[in-house]
């Protein structure tokens, strides 16, 4: 029984070593990206996409404010667009 435990522990250790080893030889790119930030906003983005109804809030894309902000290439445009509203109106879910 004792041996069994030791063995299983060894297996686990080996397994962890393998995992560590894989992480270590992981590409430098991956290490750099992790070093820049542990946050992964694209995961939350996926969740938002799934719960979204594409037609909602499309009117905003037709406003002059949005068009100027997104399309104008010269420097004569305010760089900041602030979309404000009460909680729950759907700010996060604009397509």
């Amino acid at each position, binding site marked *: 029984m004792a041996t069994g435990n030791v063995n299983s522990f060894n297996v686990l250790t080996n397994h962890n070593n393998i995992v560590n080893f894989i992480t270590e030889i992981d590409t430098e790119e991956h290490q750099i990206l992790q070093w820049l*930030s542990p946050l992964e906003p694209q995961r939350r983005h996926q969740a938002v996409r799934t719960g979204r109804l594409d037609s909602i809030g499309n009117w905003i894309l037709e406003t002059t404010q949005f068009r100027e902000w997104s399309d104008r290439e010269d420097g004569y445009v305010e760089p900041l667009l*602030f979309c404000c509203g009460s909680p729950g109106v759907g700010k996060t879910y604009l397509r």
Partner: protein
Amino acid sequence: MIDRLCDQAEGKDIAVVGLYCDFLSHQEQSITNMLGAILKQLSRRGEIPKDIREAFQKAREEFGGRGLQLSDLVEIMKKVIASLSRVFICIDALDESTPQHRQELLQSLQEIVRGSRNTRIFLTGRPHIEDEIMGSFGKVVRIPLSPTRDDIESYLEMKLSRDTDPYAMDDELRADIMRVIPEKTSKM
């Protein structure tokens, strides 16, 4: 918004990056984590920029890989943005970050935008943070968002069509829902 901008950017030298401030713990939403997450997305577009690679090597030699200082982060970000034709930074639920983090983030973004013609920032949040945004940027284009009647009807239809127990509701109740809710919410 991110998806719409991505559709526009496809095939062009335009980057669209995003950050969600809700669901971030106090510790996670440090300014370096948040700006780092933006830089990280900018770096995912092919080769990692040389400046980032060099800063990483240097940090690893100096103190076993300590993170970037805020000032370095801003400087590198400016260089990376300058190498692209346009960059859209979308930050959602800014009002849900703490006042201190929000202040730091706005100041850093302002510094990045200053002297760069190709950066566009899209922020969402409750109206009360507008003063803070003005404090950092001086000027802001504001679009107040309230759902239109069409938006509410589409949303209700979607929710009703996904009802897990559709037979529990008769046509009359369904019609009532479709009539009363849009009416009440448009008066809000």
